[in-house]
Structure formats: C-alpha cells, structure tokens
C-alpha cells in the first residue's frame, strides 16, 4: 500500500520526501532513473558488471547527498554527474590495481553479458555508432559520450574528469576523428 502511494507522487514530491529520508520515495526515484544511469555507466566503463556496480554506488552516493540537492538542475542531470564521478572513482581504483578493463580494448560488447533485450537482438544489432563508440579508449570515449551524447560543456567535462579544458577539446577532436574512421570501416565492411 505504501509503495502504491509513493509511486503516485510527482517527481518533485518524491525528491522532497527522499531529501527527508523517505526510503520508499528514494526507491521510486531509483526505479525511475536506473536505466539511464546504467546506460551512462556502460558507456563510460564498457563492462556491464562494472557498470552495475557503478550504478549502485552512484545511487548510494546520491542518497547520502540528497539533502544537498537544491533542484537547480534536473534530478537526472544531477544523477548523471554523480554517475560520472563514481565511474571515474572506479576507474582510478582499477588503474591502481593495474587491471584496467576500460583500456583493455574489447572489439565489441559481449553478447553473453548483455541484458535480455539487447542479447535477444545480438551484439551485431547494436547501432553501429554505439559499437564504434565502444572501441574508443576509455578516456576518449568518456569525452565523446558526455559532449556529443549528453551535451555537456567542455568545462563541465573537464571539471568532472579532472582534466583541463584543452585536454577535453583535444580528446574530443581525436575521438570524433577515430569514430568517423571506424564508421567508414563499417561501411567498407572491415570490422
């Protein structure tokens, strides 16, 4: 009954309740935003298991920071920022462990780890652009994803990835060029 009551609330009401510590309200926010958070995490870290961990940690960070959420940005935008920071923390940990799956070039997403919907379509049915995107190195892919998919500014990207604005621009230039060449290869039937 409580669950039904919470689900009927408007997003703003859910946020206000979650800020006051209402777990059900926060659970509903998680349910509503889990797919977009998970999708962003997959695009950043490529590995779906790691992306699931990143998503969970991002939501837990969000829960802890809920009272600080002022509502200047949309909740989804705020969650995107937390997800990027969380993904980058995981990336740094992986680097310290010298096991960096982000940089270990996987030619394409593995069908066995795809969710039922995507697995049913098979990896080859992924949009070519997404397949190509997954072939970029982690640091370059992150910039292209945040700028061209999610429309972040150079300064936002630089800030969240802890790089300079110039570095963000250079990576974007390289990433787009690599992507264009990869897509050209697809047209020629190469990869």
């Amino acid at each position, binding site marked *: 009954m409580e669950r039904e009551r919470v689900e009927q609330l408007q997003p703003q009401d859910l946020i206000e309740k979650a800020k*006051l*510590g209402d*777990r059900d309200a*926060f*659970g509903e926010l*998680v*349910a509503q935003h*889990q*797919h*977009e*958070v*998970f*999708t962003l995490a*997959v*695009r950043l870290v490529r590995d*779906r298991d790691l992306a*699931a961990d990143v*998503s*969970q940690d991002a*939501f*837990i960070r969000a*829960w*802890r*920071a*809920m*009272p*600080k959420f002022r509502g200047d940005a949309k909740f989804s935008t705020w969650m995107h920022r937390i997800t990027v920071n969380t993904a980058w923390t995981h990336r740094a940990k992986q680097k310290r462990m010298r096991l960096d799956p982000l940089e270990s070039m996987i030619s394409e997403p593995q069908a066995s780890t795809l*969710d*039922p*919907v*995507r697995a049913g379509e098979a990896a080859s049915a992924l*949009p070519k*652009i*997404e397949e190509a*995107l997954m072939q970029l190195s982690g640091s370059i892919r992150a910039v*292209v994803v945040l*700028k*061209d*998919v*999610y*429309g972040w500014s150079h300064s936002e990207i630089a800030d969240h990835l802890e790089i300079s604005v110039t570095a963000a*621009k250079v990576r*974007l*230039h*390289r990433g*787009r*060029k690599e*992507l*264009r060449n990869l*897509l*050209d290869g697809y047209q020629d039937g190469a990869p």
Partner: protein
Amino acid sequence: MNVVCSAIHVVLPTVGDGTIVGPFESHVESCVRCSSEADRYRSMHRELKGLEQLLDVAPRGLTRNVLTRLGPVAVADREPRRDNRIPVAAAAVVATAAAGTVVLLRLYRERAA
C-alpha cells in the same frame, strides 16, 4: 586534395556537427569531397545525439540492491560540521567564564558583607 580541403578536414572533427561557416562555407558547398566529409560528421553527430534516448535495461534487482545498501539518511550531514564546532566551543568558554564571574562576585559580596 588542396590546402583548403585539408584545412576543412582538420576543422570538421572540432566542429562536430558538420557545419562549416565563414570563408570556407562556399568551398564546402561546391567541393564534392568536403561536402561528403561534412555530411559524414553531420550524420555521426545526429546518431550520437540519438543515443541519449536509447537506454540499456538495468540488471534486475538493481533497485532492490541499492535499497538494501542504503545507510542512515545523509550520514555526512548528520555529523556536526567542523566550521560549526568552533563557535559552539567559543560559546561554551564564554558561558563558563560568565558563570565563574558571577560565582566569584557573589563570594566577594558575601565576604564583604
């Protein structure tokens, strides 16, 4: 490929959406190679933007897992903030000093009486 074509090929990845304006605009319109290249970037830009709406389905149980891992509300915020501790300590010192002064004054008056 002439110098202008080379320059445009360098600029296109920076522009991103294939739109070249300014002095090179007319060249792109008239050059088959450059207009084709601009079209590729334009198409790529459109496809990348379209990915925002294409969502992966999160693993089942993600919401449940998050809810089971939730700690107390806003753990960080419940802890007294460091910048609040100094005024509180200062207020305590002042209050103690004031109370001490009152006690000493009373003792002094009692003895004087």
